[in-house]
């Protein structure tokens, strides 16, 4: 059956370090991890600011960030395609159908997740420690680095959620990347392609490898967190 032989095929592909597969895996990781780093750089401070700052329209900003967690990837892809197209406003950049375009799309998709979850984590922490921090003379905004550090375990989960969304999505990267062999073909677009060729076994094998990668990355994050906690206890 396709299901069992897909396992064998997945192992065989990994064992042989199939060069095409290696290239696709590396590109997928490069795109998704870069998008995640960008989303973290923008989203962590932004989410914290949203939790602590008081300004008109804050409620609306929170609702929008939450709502955009559900932004359909294909819609994000289409909008970014129209922006990056040579006939669009950002056309002169010439980055449509490149890995850079895919990084932009994935960053847009995971930024709301990072912002929303960060805001919740920081808001809860601030509720808990507000008095102590205030007595130390810290204003809410100056407390941001401390709170981010304190909430790092919860925030890692927020980042993992972002990684999951980015590595699993196909709609946006297919539109803005073009699934060009050897250039913008990622794990998910390769799976979509093999499925459409009726090569279900190969598609499933690639799916298993992608799942394996995701599990590995999550295991690493878990181990890091445990090491950190253990270090904290010892100190």
């Amino acid at each position, binding site marked *: 059956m396709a299901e069992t032989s897909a396992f064998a095929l997945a192992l065989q592909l990994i064992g042989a370090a199939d060069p095409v597969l290696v290239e696709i895996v590396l590109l997928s990781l490069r795109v998704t991890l870069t998008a995640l780093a960008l989303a973290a750089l923008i989203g962590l401070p932004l989410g914290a600011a949203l939790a602590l700052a008081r300004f008109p329209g804050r409620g609306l900003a929170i609702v929008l960030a939450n709502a955009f967690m559900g932004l359909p990837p294909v819609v994000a892809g289409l909008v970014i395609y129209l922006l990056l197209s*040579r*006939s669009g406003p950002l056309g002169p950049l*010439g980055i449509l159908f490149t890995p850079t375009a895919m990084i932009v799309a994935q960053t847009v998709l995971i930024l709301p997740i990072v912002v929303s979850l960060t805001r919740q984590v920081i808001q809860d922490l601030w509720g808990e420690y507000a008095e102590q921090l205030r007595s130390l003379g810290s204003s809410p905004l100056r407390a941001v680095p401390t709170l981010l550090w304190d909430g790092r375990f919860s925030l890692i989960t927020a980042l993992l959620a972002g990684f999951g969304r980015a590595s699993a999505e196909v709609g946006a990267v297919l539109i803005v990347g073009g699934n060009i062999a050897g250039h913008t073909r990622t794990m998910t677009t390769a799976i979509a392609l093999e499925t459409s060729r009726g090569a279900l076994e190969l598609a499933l094998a690639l799916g298993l490898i992608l799942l394996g990668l995701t599990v590995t990355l999550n295991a690493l994050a878990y181990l890091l967190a445990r090491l950190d906690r253990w270090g904290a206890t010892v100190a």
Partner: protein
Amino acid sequence: MNRRSVASVALAAALALALPAGAEERFITVASTTSTEQSGLFAHILPVFEAATGIEVRVVAQGTGQALETGRRGDADVVFVHARAAEEAFVAEGAGLERHPVMYNDFVIVGPGDDPAGIKGKDDVVEALAAIASAGATFASRGDDSGTHKAELQFWQEAGIAPSGAWYRELGSGMGPTLNTSAELPAYTLTDRATWLNFSNRGPLEIVVEGDPELFNQYGVILVDPAKHPHVKAEDGQAFIDWLISEEGQGAIAEYTIDGQQLFFPNANDAGV
């Protein structure tokens, strides 16, 4: 390291990853159809062209309608598709320069082996579709404005039938997904032979109608007009077109086979195609 320097290292790393590689690569972007990509033709002929010229060809495989739109927006240098009327319109409206015929392959009708419409072995595609409609046998249409979809609509029109009803399923999908769905329904569908030969999840489907000259499927190649989109790589794009219709390119196309069957038949020098 304090937190700020960690953040700046992370930012630098992110930018290094995000920016394209330093060396300027020489490449063109070709908007083409799923049939040429998924049949494996490009994987066979492009390395020959790249070795000869040093120009890398990046293929974005879409339906013919979408591929022409990609060219129209200036997001490809060359379009390589199969729908003559739409290609001629593309040139007429000024989106592209000259259209060059390159090759043909053929469409076939595939359907469930038990053949509920009784059309197996027919060699007239219009008659076969009429029989499917009158039997009310399930037919899956691409429904995606691709070259194959346009050809199918043309055949219905010739049959004098406006297909509709529960038996006619518009899938809005590429050729492969349409074959996957047809195998499950099961349904008759129109497919190009190349995609069919490359398709492994056939289920009960087999070829039921083939060989009608009407089923010939002509491919053409067009350079996107550099006067309209100045960034178009006219010289390298034209080099690709010239190679495709040259003796060498035509030979490379003819050489490509699956299971000993030739898939695409070069005809750049035929008149009126």
